[in-house]
């Protein structure tokens, strides 16, 4: 089984269908200036009880991907293609009506900023109860009791009282807990968490992540965790998908990707992240430059304008030829899209480590 849960190249056909199987997902927005390719051929799989971390900076397409999983692009100008199979059911072509039955019940989502994601004019309890009543024929009272129960489960003190409060009366961490309660109220099989901890301070962050992990164990859900913070991913995820300019650039298990990152962009992400265990003197190097245009992406490797190592590739291939996502030799299930040869990557890593040590 473990083989099947691990990342597979899009082309490889698994023996049995995984719980979530995304293939060649594309989300394009036509505009006056051209087509914005927010997501451009993304594939991944996920099993129940497992967690996938999708990492990337702003505009990399990770959030658009998550919305596609919920089918929230339906009825808009967005053009979605490819396949999303959830428990064998294809979601891209699913009519809005059927998709609606899945939302909140089978697939649910924890949004990034709970203050803006919760409706300011309704009480927290009412919003949680509403989410429950959409999919369950219960009385208002029962739904309210369910809301109290959920608030209790996510660790909100005095839930009977707080259920009547408005979102603005909650603290940041409590709001996120309420958000989680709302997402979990129907026991979803797939939970998408979009930057669940970004707006929170560090101690609360840890609590929330623990909560998600606990709840996942309890409900056995599959979790897609979207973040730009590799630290969070390291903490909680089983697999990592690194996105850049709407495409996958590195995909593998947490262990592989963090231990042996293959793509210069992933290196950059790691370098821009402080490490508790790391050297205080170590410089944090943010990645220079800005994210690529999604309308006219740079030719070749989308990252090449910002890549400090493109000189290591001969013949200027980086600017001309888009690198394929291929398995890192010796791993078989760790994929990366970069023209650097494995040897060169190794060499660079050694040099950089040496430089940092100085």
């Amino acid at each position: 089984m473990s083989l099947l849960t691990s990342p597979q190249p899009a082309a490889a056909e698994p023996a049995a269908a995984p719980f979530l199987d995304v293939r060649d997902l594309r989300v394009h927005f036509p505009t006056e200036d051209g087509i914005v390719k927010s997501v451009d051929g993304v594939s991944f799989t996920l099993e129940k009880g497992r967690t996938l971390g999708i990492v990337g900076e702003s505009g990399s397409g990770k959030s658009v991907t998550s919305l596609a999983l919920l089918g929230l692009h339906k009825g808009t100008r967005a053009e979605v293609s490819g396949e999303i199979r959830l428990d064998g059911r294809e979601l891209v072509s699913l009519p809005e009506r059927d998709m609606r039955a899945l939302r909140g019940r089978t697939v649910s989502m924890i949004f990034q900023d709970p203050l803006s994601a919760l409706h300011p004019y309704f009480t927290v309890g009412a919003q949680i109860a509403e989410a429950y009543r959409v999919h369950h024929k219960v009385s208002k009272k029962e739904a309210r009791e369910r809301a109290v129960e959920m608030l209790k489960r996510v660790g909100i003190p005095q839930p009977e009282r707080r259920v009547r409060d408005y979102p603005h009366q909650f603290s940041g961490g409590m709001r996120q807990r309420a958000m989680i309660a709302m997402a979990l109220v129907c026991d979803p099989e797939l939970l998408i968490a979009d930057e669940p901890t970004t707006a929170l301070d560090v101690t609360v962050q840890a609590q929330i992540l623990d909560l998600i992990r606990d709840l996942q164990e309890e409900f056995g859900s599959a979790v897609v965790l979207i973040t730009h913070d590799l630290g969070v991913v390291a903490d909680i995820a089983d697999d990592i998908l690194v996105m850049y300019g709407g495409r996958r650039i590195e995909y593998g298990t947490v262990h592989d990707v963090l231990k042996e990152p293959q793509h210069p962009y992933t290196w950059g992400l790691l370098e821009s992240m402080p490490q508790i265990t790391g050297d205080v003197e170590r410089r944090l190097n943010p990645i220079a430059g800005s994210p690529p245009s999604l309308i006219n992406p740079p030719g070749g490797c989308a990252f090449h304008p910002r890549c400090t190592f493109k000189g290591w590739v001969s013949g200027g291939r980086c600017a001309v030829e888009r690198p394929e996502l291929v398995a890192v030799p010796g791993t078989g299930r760790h994929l990366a899209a970069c023209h650097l040869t494995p040897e060169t990557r190794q060499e660079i890593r050694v040099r950089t480590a040496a430089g940092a040590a100085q």
Partner: protein
Amino acid sequence: MTTQQQPMPADTGTTQAGQPSPDPRSDGTVITGRSPARMAWRRIRRDKVTLAAFVITVLFVLIALLAPVLTAITGWGPITPDGKAIDPDTGNFPRGALGGVSLTHLLGVEPGTGFDLFARIVYGLRTSLFVGFASAVLSTAVGVVAGLAAGYSGGWVDSVLSRIMDVMLAFPQLLFIIALTPVIQNAMQTNSHGGTDENLRLLVLVLNIAVFAWAYTARLVRGQVLSLREREFVDAARIMSAGKWHILFRQLLPNLWAPVLISFALAVPQNITTEAALSYLGVGVIPPNPDWGALLSDASQFFLQDPMYLFVPGVLLLMLVLALNLLGDGVRDALDPRAARG
């Protein structure tokens, strides 16, 4: 009120602050290196409706400017009666169909006086446009200064100015202008010998309209200044001990031109409407001086007998105000990237 318009919930793909949204409208943040004015101009050029409105507005302005030339061609001035075109026995109603439309009187003649309607309309346009623009300029200027002063100074200056704005906005304005006009006109009549100077009268009208319009702009500017003064560049200027006036006019004002221009663009049609309403109620421009509102007021008394006389200026005024409103909307959409007509 805010007029920002955002896409439907479902097509906002991203949520991170500052992240370039895939929303097609905000492509400006992705494609860098264009000045806001350029971008605005680019948007206007693409907006066919706004362009059409612009062309119509220019056409109206041209007609107003060329009024003497146009009436020289037709041969009838705005206050030259054509006694033959009206029938004294029926109460000076125009002879002939459609309010006396003929080759000499393209739009017919005015009942009662026999003035050429075409000439009165082209000259009346001058008055409407002048009052509309002049009062908008005045109210915007006063509003900007008051708004800047209130927003930037804070403290008692802000309190006093804000209360004045409250009072102005609470006034039953139309009622008050109606009441105020005879007072001022009376003061003027004692100055001139017998007759009333029509330019002075227009000026009073402009002042009256501006007096009740500046508070809107002032409130808008004050709000903008309050948010701007917390921004870094103002702090920076302050730290560099820049003078108050420097900060006001060199730092804040340049950042206000978009909202000010928008409020100006929308004030012009609004003021033209107000002017027409006042003239309709008999306290604006006074016949025989040509003015659209006064024409409509006059026409309203004959509309059962001579509907053409009401419809021609009525429809033209609608066209003018509509064009100016469309233009104002277009300018707003172009200057405020978040606002889109859809």
